[in-house]
Each structure stands twice: as structure tokens, then as C-alpha cells.
């Protein structure tokens, strides 16, 4: 059985079902209670689970730091940072404590904390509401980073994140929250962390994308006179290296697409892994289509900043013509 849901509704369904399934799940963050979240991802959950869904003070370090304690105590906190750009106010709690708890105690304490963060541009938001920092989180040892690109994965990846014994940064593309309605399996639906998905089959080139860039990439591929395979990474860390390499070995050409700035972006890591283990399968240099190395612009310029189908198409064409 499936339901036609938007991404934000699928995320809400995952939260609802995990709260129902496991009494130790606790959902909290700024405005997640009465207001149901500024994107309505937690709508009415506080009414159904009054003792396990909480509004908190506006304090990102506090939200994550309390989660470290809740998790050590044996609960399964699901914290919301209202916009990923403000997670830097909690960076130290995430990097210095959440991600390290297992390693520094040799597994005698862990941190089963899921940190939900709406991220990315395309919704004409205020300054500092649109950044993508997946490469930064992926650079922190001990953290997992999941990024759904569609409603079904939104539900399945979030369920997997909440059940995962390690801390997970769960990035929700704001642009896709209400973009489409798609089929979402009813009941228990888990998409394992660390498994990419081939969302379009192809022979001539591979395009790797995640989150908000997946629909743009599929758009770009639709208009090309070539057969392009699109790999949706779904989990940035741990990355499904083999899925990317298998596709690149088949097609010999690759384009990596992300919304974050280019320098030090996660595309660089993917290029390095291709270089390590599939270099001689390449027919052309791996292309990158990314945001620019500038602060995410105010919304009058955000369309110029975000990779769109045209830019992605040109990137694929470069890879095909080399």
C-alpha cells in the first residue's frame, strides 16, 4: 500500500510512526510543538504525544547538547535545527561531543541522536537560511549524513536515522518539501543508511547528485540525446562508494552535482574515490556542477547561484564531448 505524499508529509509520517513504535523517541526543537514546525513537519505530533514532543528555547547548542545527554540516558532524541545554516551555533556540540561520544568512551556510551535540519536554497528565504554544508558534516568522523530527495526516501531514511545507534545529521531539502506528491509506502518503511539509489538507468555517462539537486539532475537528463545514469547518493556519509564506481565503470564518464560551494565540496571527495579505484575506466575528466564559492546570495540572485537543469546539462555535455 502506498500514499501520495509530499516530502514534508512523509517526514511527518516517519516521526509519527517512530514515536508510536518506540516509547524512547523524543522529538523537540524550536517551534516543533504547538506550531508544528515552521515547515509543519511536526504538525499535531505534540497533541498525539504530549510527553514526547517539545518546544524548546531558541538555542541551537542547547538543543544538541541536551540531545547528547538524553541519548546517553537511553532515550532516542530527534532534534530539529530550524534551518541548517544555524547549526553552526551547535557545531561544537555536534563535532566535539555527539560525533565523538562512542569513540572517546570506546563504545561504553553512544549518542543515538538524529538532528533534522532543513537545508538548501530555492525557497526565497532570508539571508543565512539556504546553505548546504553536507561536506562539512561528512568531514566530521563519527557522524552520518542523510539527505533524501523524494518523499519515500524522506520517510525511509528518517526511520533508519532514528533507529541508527550513531548520531545522524538529517538534511531536508526545503525546496522539495512541497514540490511534488509521490508514492510513499504505508507502515514500516526503512531505507538503509549508506545505500545509494540508481534513479535513472543509462549507458553514456553517470550523474551523481543528492537532495535538492536530484530533481534538477533528472530534469537535465530528460532533455539530453544521451543515456545518462543518475545516482542519488541518499547518504553522503557513509557514502555508497561502490554504487558510484559501478556506474562509472559502466559509463566511463561522470558529473557530480551539488548545491554547496565548489571548493572542498563533497564532489571533490567523490572525484578522489573515482581516482582511487576507477580512474582507468574514465573516458573523460570528471565534471563538477556546483554552487559558487560565494556566500549564498539573497534571493534575487539565488537562481543564478543554484545549479539548474541547464547548467547540469552543460556539465554532462562537457563530460560527453571530452
Amino acid at each position, binding site marked *: 500500500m502506498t500514499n501520495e505524499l509530499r516530502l514534508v508529509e512523509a517526514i511527518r509520517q516517519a516521526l509519527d510512526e517512530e514515536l508510536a513504535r518506540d516509547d524512547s523517541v523524543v522529538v523537540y526543537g524550536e517551534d516543533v510543538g504547538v506550531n508544528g514546525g515552521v515547515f509543519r513537519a511536526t504538525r499535531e505530533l505534540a497533541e498525539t504525544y504530549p510527553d514526547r514532543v517539545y518546544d524548546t528555547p531558541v538555542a541551537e547548542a542547547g538543543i544538541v*547538547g541536551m540531545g547528547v545527554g538524553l541519548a546517553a540516558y537511553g532515550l532516542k532524541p530527534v532534534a530539529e535545527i530550524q534551518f541548517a545554516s544555524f547549526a553552526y551555533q551547535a557545531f561544537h556540540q555536534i563535532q566535539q561531543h555527539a560525533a565523538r561520544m562512542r569513540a572517546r568512551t570506546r563504545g561504553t556510551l553512544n549518542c543515538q541522536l538524529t538532528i533534522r535540519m532543513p537545508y538548501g536554497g530555492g525557497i526565497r528565504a532570508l539571508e543565512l537560511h539556504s546553505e548546504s554544508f553536507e561536506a562539512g558534516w561528512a568531514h566530521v568522523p563519527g557522524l552520518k549524513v542523510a539527505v533524501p530527495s523524494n518523499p519515500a526516501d524522506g520517510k525511509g531514511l528518517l526511520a533508519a536515522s532514528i533507529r541508527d545507534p550513531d548520531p545522524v545529521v538529517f538534511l531536508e531539502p526545503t525546496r522539495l518539501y512541497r514540490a511534488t506528491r509521490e508514492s510513499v509506502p504505508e507502515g514500516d518503511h526503512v531505507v538503509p543508511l549508506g545505500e545509494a539509489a540508481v534513479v535513472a538507468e543509462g549507458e553514456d555517462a553517470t550523474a551523481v547528485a543528492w537532495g535538492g539537486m536530484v530533481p534538477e539532475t533528472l530534469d537535465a537528463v530528460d532533455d539530453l540525446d544521451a543515456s545518462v545514469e543518475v545516482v542519488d547518493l541518499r547518504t553522503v556519509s557513509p557514502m555508497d562508494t561502490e554504487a558510484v564506481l559501478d556506474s562509472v565503470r559502466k559509463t566511463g564518464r561522470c558529473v557530480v552535482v551539488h548545491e554547496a560551494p565548489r571548493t572542498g565540496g563533497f564532489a571533490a571527495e567523490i572525484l578522489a574515490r573515482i581516482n582511487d*579505484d576507477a580512474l582507468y575506466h574514465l573516458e573523460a575528466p570528471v565534471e563538477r556542477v556546483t554552487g559558487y564559492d560565494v556566500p549564498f546570495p539573497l534571493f534575487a540572485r539565488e537562481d543564478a547561484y543554484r545549479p539548474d537543469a541547464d547548467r547540469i546539462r552543460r556539465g554532462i555535455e562537457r563530460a560527453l564531448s571530452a
Partner: protein
Amino acid sequence: MVREQVAEFSIQYVQALDEDGDLDESEAPDLDEETLREMYRLMKLSRRVDERAVALQRRGELGTYAPGIGQEAAQIGSALALAEGGWMVPSFREGGAYLARGTPVHRLLWYALGMEEGAEVSGGNFPPSIPVGSQPLHAAGVGWGQEMTGAAEATLSYFGDGATSQGDVYEAMNMAGVFDSHVVFLCQNNQYAISTPRGVQTRAETLAQKAVAAGIEGIQVDGNDVLGVHAVVRHALESARGGDPVLVEALTYRRSMHTTSDDPTVYRTEEEEAEWAARDPIDRFERYLLGEDVLDEAEIDAVENRIEEELADEIERARAGREGVDPAEMFDHVFAEIPPALREQRAEFERGRTGQYDRERTEGSERDE
């Protein structure tokens, strides 16, 4: 125009045992002689562990070590107030508190030997927290969990005077207040954050009053008075178990260095150090116990001898443990299950150890056309 006072507050200071070892019965906790002797033994043990650790560091055996000399009353008085089942969330100078919670000496030494084995925890203890002031939030979180699950337990969080300048400490007190967290925040005001004196840390008259803005109770105690600390913290923990968090400021003095990398003669005067030496928490308690005939000189000697024997054994145990360190274990506890890329790095590391370091590429190393 209206102008009226809408809030007022005051901060109380508590002392049970004065500097001469005289006890104010009205502030004293009700403890039997066995507990008093145990309190004394732990304070002496803590002092000796620190002294030996500094000596071992000077000989090159230990890495950087943060001694708690002078703070034994604040640590042991408070940690003994925490019942079994309660949680302790320490800073990085809480050797005494760990000892009071039953952690063996060799584990403290393992941590100073650079071994994660020393931070393996159990029984509701958190590992040492190196960043300044971030861990009170974890205590507030544990205490929130205790409130949510209806546990009749509480959590004790340690931090220093410097930490009170960090935003996280305010966030911790504020959120603890909002969520009725079962937490006691114990600020050991030892007068210095490395070289920065308390007076440069804040213009606030007391650190205890930092509780006021968060809407929780704040109280000061003579931190060199083990009985006063014990009484105040025990009372605070009772309050916390009922969902009312408390900030306790224990006024004490770090008699030695910040860490073994630090030289306090650069920023402190001998006069000041002598003034605090006269208020030493162990000397004061010893005077009291001798005066009450809870201890005599022969028993003091016996306690000291037992401590030296225990220390000799524990130092040997620490050294033996160091011999067993397997560096490959650094890969094993990053995640519950090791992901493929990390498994490959572990294999690469193992190849390096066995002299096969040349990278063994898979089929990517050969052109296949």
C-alpha cells in the same frame, strides 16, 4: 510614568566547618563516623594521585595532566552526595569526583597516558570533557531524561569559573529550568581559568547569581569545607530530583597548576598561594576529625600507608595496560558498525603495520582495455 521594583534576589553563602576545623552543627550534614573516615580517605587519595601523576608527568611517563589539588572538598563532598543511580557529568579536573564514584586510579592514569581505555565509563559517569563549558548541557539533558521518565534520580554537573563565561552554561541552566531537569550545576570557582583571574571573568559579584537569569536557585558554599559542600549539594540534589535545578558555586582554590603545561608563578603571588594554603580542605577536615576523635595519628598513618600501597599497585596496572594498546582499535569505535570506507582505511593501516604499505589498488590499477 511608573517605576517600581519587579524582581529582587539574594545569594546565600554556607559554611559548616570553619578554617580552624570548628563545626557549625546547624549547617552540618548528618554523617556517621564511617562515612567521615571514607570522605577523609578519598580526599587524601585524590591528593596523592595528583601528586604522583604530576611527578610521573615530569618523568615523561604521563601526558598533560590537570591536578585538582586544593579542590578535594568540593569534589569529594559533592560526589559522595550523589546517590548510586545518579549521573555525574564532569569537566577535566574531576579526578577526586571519579574516585568518590568508585573509578579505579589506573583508569585516571590511562586517560593521562593518552588511552581511550581511561574514558570507558560505567555506572552513570560521563567521560572527562575537554572543551570548556559544553558539558553542563549534557547533564541538563540527562536530567531532562530523568524528569521525562519519572526517575527519582539526579545528575551532577561539574565546571569551573571560566566556563560560566560560555554561552552553553547559560543555555544549560536556562533549558534545565524550562524542562524541570534533575540537574545540579556545580561550579568549582577555583579563582583562575588558566591565568585569567575570576575578576576578569565577569563583573558579576557572584557566579551563583548566574542562576537568577535562568530562573533557578543559586547558592554559594565554602568549597574547601567538605561538610558544607556535602550538605549543600545533597540538598540541591534533593531539589533537582523534584524538578528544580540548582546552581552551586563552591568557592575554592586550585593550589597547583592548571595543567602540567602551565606555570602559575607567572600570574599568581606567593602571598595569595600561602593565604589559600592556610585554608587547605584536607588540613581543615583532619583537624576536625582529630578533635572529634574520629581519627587519631596512628589511624592517619595507616590510611596513608594503605594509599601508598594502592597507588603502587595501580601505577603498575596503568603501565601494564599501556603495553596492551593496539593502535588499530582507533577504527573500531567510531560507529556501531564500521562503514566500508573506514574498513578499507583499517585494512590500509594493517598493511602498513605488516610492511605491505604500497597501496593495493583493486582493478582500477590496471587499464582493462
